[in-house]
């Protein structure tokens, strides 16, 4: 409870500082393209009925993509990390593909998969996949050999070693990569939604921009920021729960 209270207080302080800075910047520039926080927030509340379905659509896309990307990358990455032979075959491929900015495939995906949810989810899943793959592989490589030997001496099968040692030992690194990946995922989501389609927060923002409705545009930006904060915090809470042993003894 104390931890939560402190966290909330911290967020509140940060929000106040950011709003003040925003108000100051808006006043200094004095352009309609940068409305102040008061009108933006008022619009956000006013337009809530229109905005929340867009939040739901965007949120569902990004969550689905992250779940799919992670679910595919974790088993493969852990396996590559534990199997030198598989790794020797796959590593050159991974290191060739990893640095390619996957977002450049957006046009290809749009042509092949249409303008709906699929190309957006596939693109984000692809990005998350490579980030988690490399992290999981490195984490599995760094698993202390003593832990593996001790579990094997108890008669552990290959699956037991993954279940009792490799997976729990790699979870902290995987969660860190996921949290950092949230930012990239939402950025790519914005790009994908703003280029193609007729719904989602990206579309909402660009549509408001086209109508020169700057307060609505900023309401959309606020919604996108909220989506990011909620996702990040949810992952943080999930991580704390899944790796609660790490807090022990501190």
């Amino acid at each position, binding site marked *: 409870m104390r931890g939560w209270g402190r966290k909330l207080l911290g967020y509140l302080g940060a929000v106040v500082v950011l709003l003040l800075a925003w108000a100051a910047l808006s006043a200094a520039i004095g352009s309609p393209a940068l409305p102040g926080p008061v009108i933006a927030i008022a619009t956000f509340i006013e337009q809530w009925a229109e905005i929340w379905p867009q939040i739901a659509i965007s949120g569902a896309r990004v969550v689905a993509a992250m779940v799919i990307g992670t679910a595919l990358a974790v088993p493969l990455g852990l396996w590559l990390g534990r199997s030198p032979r598989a790794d020797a075959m796959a590593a050159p491929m991974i290191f060739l593909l990893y640095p390619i900015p996957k977002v450049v495939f957006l046009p290809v995906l749009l042509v092949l998969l249409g303008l709906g949810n699929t190309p957006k989810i596939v693109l984000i899943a692809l990005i998350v996949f490579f980030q988690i793959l490399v992290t999981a592989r490195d984490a599995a490589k760094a698993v202390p050999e003593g832990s593996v030997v001790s579990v094997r*001496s108890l008669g552990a099968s290959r699956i037991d070693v993954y279940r009792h040692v490799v997976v729990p030992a790699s979870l902290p690194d995987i969660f860190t990569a996921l949290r950092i990946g949230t930012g990239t995922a939402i950025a790519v989501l914005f790009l994908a939604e703003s280029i193609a389609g007729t719904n989602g927060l990206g579309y909402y923002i660009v549509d408001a921009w086209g109508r020169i409705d700057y307060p609505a545009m900023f309401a959309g930006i606020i919604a996108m920021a909220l989506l990011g904060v909620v996702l990040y915090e949810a992952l943080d809470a999930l991580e704390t729960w899944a790796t609660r042993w790490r807090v022990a003894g501190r």
Partner: protein
Amino acid sequence: MAALEFDSTSMTYEGSDRSVRALDALELAVDVGEPVAIIGPSGCGKSTLLLLAAGLLAPTSGAVRVGGSAVDGPRRGTALILQDFGLLPWKTVEANAALGLKIRGVAAAELHQRAISALEGVGLADFARAYPAELSGGMRQRLALARAVALDADLVLMDEPLSALDALKREELQDVLLGLWKLRGHTQVLVTHSIEEAVFLGRRVVVMSPRPGKVSAVVDNPGMGSEGYRVTEEYFETVKRLRRILAEEGVVAAADVVAP
């Protein structure tokens, strides 16, 4: 029939540019219920010997037998306790103690009961829900012992299990080890680099020499386990004798052997 038997066992590790002969035609038999201590300089193949006995390595030539049959993988009744205790930081004390049982597919209710009674045996029952990071070094060591106890192992292999502890804790844990062995009567192989520990916990002390590892001497120590053994004349004499043997091996300085 010997509980654990090395029959002309050799082990060679193949490196990328050279191979290392860790054990050379090792001959050693440990009787059922016998506590044996193995001592020797680093590189004498002590750890290799334990990994072979635990079925985690296969010998290059010769045989390793437990209870008369050749070891071909980890065995149900064998417990291996490593220097770093082999505890999993992400599992609670109880889950760590129960890990061997869980891997062997023991049902949850029995699992819980056996883990708790093993923890009681080493004085850790109050910490069942804690994580290893919350325990002191001595308590972690006790937990590693509890895992072996929970398994009901008849062969306990230990690789320098107390080397991370300070001198006082070490003696306390040596008493715990001795108590467990007296209570359970399992066959025990303890690898150590402490002369005193070897004499306190080994009814026979096997001295190994390095490169390639082989048995260079065996010291019988029949008084081991008797009441107050640590302060008897016999204990001191055996320590001195062992020290002399190790000095001849060039492991300890010759000056340490002669009393001033």
